């Protein structure tokens, strides 16, 4: 239960096309993450799946059944909103019970489920409070609890952690991962935080301007981005893109046909005997690593992240090399070109 398939989905607001030809299959029990820059249509796509909104074209299937015209309530999905969307005038218990009462579930069953979920999420002491009396993290827990009590076929989460501070976000991220492992339910998770995407996802869907750019497991995405956009979007700091001429010192054995651009991640640059001649312009020492901003002789900018402390000052020259296997090649249309094996 909980397999979701999208076929040829389009969404237009007036003349503005927000989603273009979305085809995607999310497997049962999978944690699928949608990432992409702000405004790329992540939330819109999630709303088409949830049934809060209707696609202009295309179909949504849940467990093989066409639910495109089925109302949100009857799709058996639960949604966690970025703003939590807890009912402010109800206690935590009433918030959890509200959806179950709509289903005319017997009282005893409602009580049992609320007890289970509040134990699982450790919100038992909060059960009589109102959302206004909770911290951000506690509210988030309750919002997730409200989704869990309904025992949905799949969970839809729209940037559930983006309102939390950095520290809490890290711990909630781990809890969410544990929760997914425990419930084994399908989850679709929207974020623009790529660390969240990389750590949580079974599979990542990268969106840009309403189109799917690539669907892949986190490390595949990192190792084999299909185009320059994905390569630049995944990984921080983002990948360096050099012309073939600039990158020549790194290209020992020549390049595959049609290569116009060579990509190398800042973390993959290391000090070497021979390679790129970099003139440092700015050095950021972060303790665990040192980030060096610099320019090549041609004037092209380059970023390198070197582990540990490095005694470099602006104006210094240094030579950086890279493992040829960690280079990425793109053609003039920004598409990936595979290295000759």
């Amino acid at each position: 239960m909980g397999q979701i398939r999208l076929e040829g989905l389009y969404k237009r607001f007036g003349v503005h096309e927000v989603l273009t030809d979305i085809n995607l299959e999310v497997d049962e029990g999978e944690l699928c993450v949608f990432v992409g820059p702000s405004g790329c249509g992540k939330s819109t796509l999630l709303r088409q799946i949830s049934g809060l909104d209707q696609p202009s074209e295309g179909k949504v299937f849940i467990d093989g059944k066409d639910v495109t015209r089925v109302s949100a309530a009857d799709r058996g999905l639960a949604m966690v909103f970025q703003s939590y969307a807890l009912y402010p005038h109800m206690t935590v218990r009433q918030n959890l019970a509200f959806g179950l009462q709509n289903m005319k579930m017997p009282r005893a069953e409602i009580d049992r489920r609320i007890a289970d979920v509040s134990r699982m999420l450790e919100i038992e002491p909060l059960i009589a409070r109102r959302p206004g009396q909770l911290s951000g993290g506690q509210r988030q827990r309750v919002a997730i609890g409200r989704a869990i009590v309904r025992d949905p076929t799949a969970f839809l989460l729209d940037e559930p952690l983006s309102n939390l501070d950095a520290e809490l976000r890290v711990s909630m991220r781990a809890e969410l991962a544990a929760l997914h492992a425990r419930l084994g339910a399908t989850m679709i998770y929207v974020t623009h935080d790529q660390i969240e995407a990389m750590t949580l996802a079974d599979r990542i869907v990268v969106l840009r301007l309403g189109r799917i750019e690539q669907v892949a497991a986190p490390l595949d995405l990192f190792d084999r981005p299909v185009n320059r956009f994905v390569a630049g979007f995944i990984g921080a700091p983002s990948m360096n893109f050099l012309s073939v001429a600039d990158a020549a010192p790194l290209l020992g054995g020549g390049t595959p046909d049609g290569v116009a651009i060579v990509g190398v991640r800042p973390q993959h640059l290391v000090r070497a005997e021979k390679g790129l001649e970099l003139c440092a312009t700015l050095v950021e020492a972060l303790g665990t690593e040192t980030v060096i901003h610099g320019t090549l002789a041609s004037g092209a900018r380059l970023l390198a992240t070197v582990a540990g402390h490095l005694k470099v000052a602006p104006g210094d020259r240094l030579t950086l090399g890279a493992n040829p296997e960690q280079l990425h090649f793109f053609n003039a249309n920004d598409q990936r070109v595979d290295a000759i094996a």
Partner: protein
Amino acid sequence: MSFALANTIGAVFAAPVRWLAASIDAPLRLWQRLTGKGGMIAFFLMPNIIVFGTFVIIPLFINFAYSVTGGNELFLTDRSFVGTQHFDRLLTCDNHFDPSSCRDDLFWTAVWNTARFVVVQVTTIAIVAMGTALILNSKIPARGFWRAVFFFPVLLSPVVVGLIWRWILQRQGLLNFVMIEMDLTPVNWLIERDWAFVAAVGVSVWAHVGFYALILLAGLQAIPRDLYEAAEMDGTRPARVFFRITLPLLWPNLLVVIVLALIRAVQIFDEVYVLTGGGPGTSTLYLTQYIYEIGFASILRNPGLASAASLMMGGVLIVLTLGQLGLQRWRDRA
């Protein structure tokens, strides 16, 4: 360009202001030297204190003086002290629910008429304002236009409202004309007791409901959209959404609407006076009209009695206003 223009215009308007400020500069300095900081505060408060005092505070005391003096003279010096005689007259009844058993049956008629009017009118306003706000908040075509349409009557002077509806409702008015054209029997809207009451309530609701609908509309728009989406995901039926989500979250606004409408309903006068003149008989005679007629309009005017009645009405209004202030404070804290 436009910025330079604004500067020029500003300079033109600033010139007389600057001249005025310069001309009072010297006397103000002198005043400050003589009276210090407290004197300056008094100086700046003075315009308001004068206006408020002339038209509110002083009349309040004069009103009290009238209520304990007798006769139909207008100058206080010509009036004799009578103590609580007016209050006694107003309050003496065998049965307060039966105006004909009271010494001043007209007063109690007005009291009970007003009470009935307040209950029916405020309830109607609350319900109609709620319905209007809900409709204006939904995705209807030309929403801005409809919002304006419902608000326009609020901008009309009450006398104009009364006149418009008299033209529509009188025996040979617009409504009866239309009804005759449609082969219906015309009704004497303003002459039949029950219809006159309905007209009084209906017209005053029509005149004021836009204002209250606006308060509720603001409240509705403050309810986050995603609460409704969460409810939709939860499969909540529309009636339950209204009673479990919209109404509780709108309750503070609704309370404000009810209290404000109450305060205004107790003071109802102009629209109804122009519309029905209190008739037929005394069936739409309300407290303010009673006070006005006893104090100014009847041949045997009795300002003392009118003042006593107005003080009693003032007492009721003070209670309601305090109630509203209390509510507001409670709402700000919640």
